[in-house]
């Protein structure tokens, strides 16, 4: 900047001293930091900001309902106040929030129940919803309005402002609603209203898309969406069962870093090392604890207080060297193939669906599990490249597609083997929707805005395996469809010519045309039927439904592709058999 100044002007510099600098040195509150760097949280532009706000609110709503064992019904309303200003209202039927916690949850950054535990949930850091409120406050100056009702208690309406310099909420007003408030039909729930600067646009990365995908990944949730254009879109519930409650787990020794270990040593309630290792970690028993302690020249009886930095380092090394079984995986609750298919079937107009759920695996000591579902054909766009729907703990990820691990996994999978076209180093093209879901107690996002999953080898490998499993099913289906087309083509060729042959033979040796035709027709049918039951590519006899017929992870919708039968005019009768032999499975209720 000094270069711009004219050289003639004498430079006047006030050199700061340590003392003057000290005057400017002070605490930075988290909220101040994020208020300045709001793009880190996904509030970079009005359109994205509005989506992020809704996303955080809906995620919290679903988390709360599930944790309380309530089938979620979420109501989302986007009201346009003026050109650039929107009023978002998100209401759930969750358990409600106790009055004292309301301001902390909605008015303080990094406050929440989810950060300190290792449990699979949508939210992780406790930043989301309060950041949305903060964004609203900053862009419109309007406070957040929260109404929450606990069962058998009166609903509280709290108007909140956030003091960003202190990362502290300040309550503007607090009113109690009447006992017979009709806002929450089930007698409990939370509603949050945020006014913010935004932009509403349909299409890719829109609120509509986000809710649609949320409905796919949460078939047990009912979502009602009132759009700014005054339409009401209903995403119905297709599964009346809540997913199982994920268990909370303790950290796995191999999953922590040295700093975390030291921190844990400082904070533990345990006095002796043995107790610390067995109680604060999972998968460590008394024997394992002794082994680890011995590796660090300590014993199980060593006092935790005496462990300094050097000892901690040794302890850390010892943990890395010791063989410890992988963390238990009952903390993971995948959507499940059946529910995945139900969700996909509801929102995607394809003719073939396949899903697969991988067994749980571990990255950096954190258990995770991958699920993949695909939809092919039907009403999907034939010429575009495939659509990749990414999810993490049932939350759709809409931004930063190409830096996401799941996108890379889709591109790395060789779809050509399954009968699709795929440009080099790219995702396949054709009428295909690929859904990749990662569940984990801790999803490694690339940033706080939770847009993309970090690229861990273990994760990408699992994703590819799941994709390949689905791909194989798709390949089988496509091959069979091709073969059926070929067979029916073959049959029609034969049927075309046998009339000519019958007449020739009649003329040459006086054979009965009609009889001969029927005999040949019978043979033609038999021969093409034979081919229908040919051995498939894995050497098994393809039975009526094919291998896919008995597969729970596959749904084939075949009313989309039934072609009109051609009338056989040769002898004035139509005797074509039904060609399709795939078992028809009923669509999920809609």
């Amino acid at each position, binding site marked *: 900047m000094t270069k711009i100044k004219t050289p003639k002007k004498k430079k006047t510099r006030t050199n700061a001293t340590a003392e003057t600098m000290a005057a400017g040195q002070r605490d930075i509150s988290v909220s101040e930091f994020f208020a300045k760097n709001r793009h880190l949280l996904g509030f970079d532009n009005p359109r994205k900001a509005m989506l992020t706000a809704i996303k955080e609110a809906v995620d919290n709503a679903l988390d709360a309902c599930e944790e309380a064992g309530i089938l979620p019904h979420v109501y989302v309303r986007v009201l346009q106040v003026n050109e650039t200003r929107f009023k978002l209202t998100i209401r759930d039927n969750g358990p409600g929030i106790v009055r004292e916690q309301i301001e902390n949850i909605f008015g303080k950054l990094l406050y929440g129940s989810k950060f300190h535990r290792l449990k699979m949930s949508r939210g992780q850091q406790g930043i989301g919803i309060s950041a949305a409120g903060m964004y609203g406050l900053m862009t419109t100056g309007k406070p957040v309005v929260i109404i929450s009702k606990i069962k058998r208690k009166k609903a509280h309406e709290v108007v909140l402002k956030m003091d960003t310099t202190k990362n502290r909420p300040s309550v503007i007003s607090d009113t109690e609603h009447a006992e017979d408030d009709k806002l929450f039909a089930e007698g409990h729930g939370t509603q949050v209203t945020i006014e913010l600067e935004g932009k509403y646009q349909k299409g890719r990365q829109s609120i509509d898309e986000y809710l649609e995908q949320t409905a796919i990944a949460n078939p047990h949730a009912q979502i009602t969406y009132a759009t700014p254009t005054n339409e009401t879109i209903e995403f119905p519930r297709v599964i009346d069962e809540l997913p199982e409650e994920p268990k909370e787990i303790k950290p796995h020794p191999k999953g922590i870093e040295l700093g975390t270990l030291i921190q844990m040593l400082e904070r533990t309630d345990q006095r002796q090392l043995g107790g610390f290792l067995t109680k604060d970690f999972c998968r460590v028993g008394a024997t394992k604890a002794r082994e680890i302690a011995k590796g660090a020249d300590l014993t199980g009886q060593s006092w935790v207080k005496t462990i300094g930095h050097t000892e901690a380092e040794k302890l850390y090394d010892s943990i890395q060297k010791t063989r410890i079984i992988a963390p238990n995986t009952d903390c993971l609750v995948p959507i499940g193939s059946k529910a995945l298919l139900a969700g996909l079937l509801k929102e995607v107009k394809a003719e073939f669906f396949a899903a697969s759920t991988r067994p749980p695996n571990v990255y950096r000591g954190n258990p995770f599990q991958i699920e993949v579902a695909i939809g092919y054909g039907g009403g999907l766009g034939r010429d575009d490249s495939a659509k990749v729907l990414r999810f993490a703990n049932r939350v759709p990820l809409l931004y930063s597609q190409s830096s996401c691990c799941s996108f890379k996994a889709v591109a790395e999978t060789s779809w050509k083997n399954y009968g699709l076209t795929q440009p080099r180093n790219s995702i396949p093209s054709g009428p295909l929707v690929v859904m990749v879901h990662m569940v984990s107690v801790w999803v490694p996002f690339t940033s706080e805005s939770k847009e993309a999953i970090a690229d861990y080898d273990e994760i990408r490998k699992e994703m590819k395996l799941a994709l390949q499993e689905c791909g194989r099913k798709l390949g089988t289906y496509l091959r069979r469809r091709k073969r059926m087309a070929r067979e029916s083509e*073959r049959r029609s060729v034969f049927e075309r010519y046998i009339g000519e*042959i019958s007449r*020739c033979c009649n003329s*040459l040796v006086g*054979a009965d045309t009609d*009889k001969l035709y029927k*005999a040949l027709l019978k*043979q033609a049918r038999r021969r093409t039927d034979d081919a229908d039951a040919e051995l498939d590519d894995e050497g098994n006899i393809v039975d009526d439904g094919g291998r896919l017929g008995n597969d729970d992870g596959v749904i084939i919708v075949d009313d989309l592709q039934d072609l009109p039968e051609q009338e056989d005019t040769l002898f004035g009768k139509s005797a074509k058999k039904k060609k399709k032999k795939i078992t028809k499975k009923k669509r999920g209720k809609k």
Partner: protein
Amino acid sequence: MAKKKITKKKTSKKTSTKAAATPRKSVVDKKRDAATKKKIETLATSVVKRSMAQKEPSFEIPTRSISNMTYNKKKRILEMGTNTQTRSLFNLGQSRKFMQSLLLAKGCRDLIDAEKTLSLRGMYYMGLHTIPGTKEKTFNDQSESDGILEDLEVSLDGLREELHIFAKKRGTMVGNITVVDNGDEINCRKMGSGGYAIPSICEPNVMQFKKCEADFILHVEKDTVWSRFNEDRFWETHNCILTEGSGQPPRGVRRMLHRMHKELGLPVYCLLDCDPWGHYIYSVIKQGSINLAFESERMAIPDAKFMGIRSKDYDRLDLSDDVKIELNDRDITRAKQIAAYPWFEGKREWQREIKTMLNNGFKMEVESLITKDISYVTEEYVPQRLKEGDFLD
């Protein structure tokens, strides 16, 4: 071309002799026809029988390719081997051909019944119709039906003539001979500048030889050269028969040459271009062709001689550079192929001839001799060769 041509009227172009008025004997060979008809019916019966028994209708066709052909060293002709291929209805690639075969077999039977003959083109139209209930035609073009007819010939073991089919006629003849074609006497000494068009069918029942004074037959490659010889009345001065086959001679010409050679004992000399294609024409006249190996016995002339043009003629006759036509890649490959044929393999003179041509790097046409003199070929070249007896065998 597309019209039905009936052999009985075919001679009208020629100078009609007085025989035209006399009631004509039927040229149809009843016995042969009955046998052919029987063969066609056997084929159809087998199709019906197999169909009714729910077995796949099929028939065998002897393979017409170089792999199924042997050179009979003793007879010095090409012969067809015993390999056959099955044509079956329920094979996607053969289904249509199977249907076409039956259609044409029926067409041939109808021809035999009607005691008429048709051209290949005529047969195409005879079998042509749209398959009921579809938009598909039984034949897309004539080449499709031509191929099927050749298949039928071999699989029925009946000749084209026996199936009452003839090809478009090609080839001309003039010389000291009188023939009877379909009952009309034809004096080949009085054929003007056009010559007598050799018919497609030259079987004894159609074509008889009457009076022949000629000493030999000179076969030239094409019409232009033949015209030179005819204009110079070469056949008169050298007492011979002059024939021409417009390139690769059709079956009619080859059958005619074969019969004159066999029945009248006339030696056959060939004057062809000095290129692989000329060499192969000679090969076909001499040993028979690969495609029609089954007819070699009736067509090949193992004693036919190759008179020229020889590759050494360029130096020997001191021809100008202008006559050189450079060999292209295809020529070279073909020449090497021909040299490797078993019937050329053992002939050292032929190997040398082809080698010289390849070394020269150019080919020459018969017409190149015109650079010496318009009538050099008739007055100098051929008489000289005949005198010296300088031929390739």
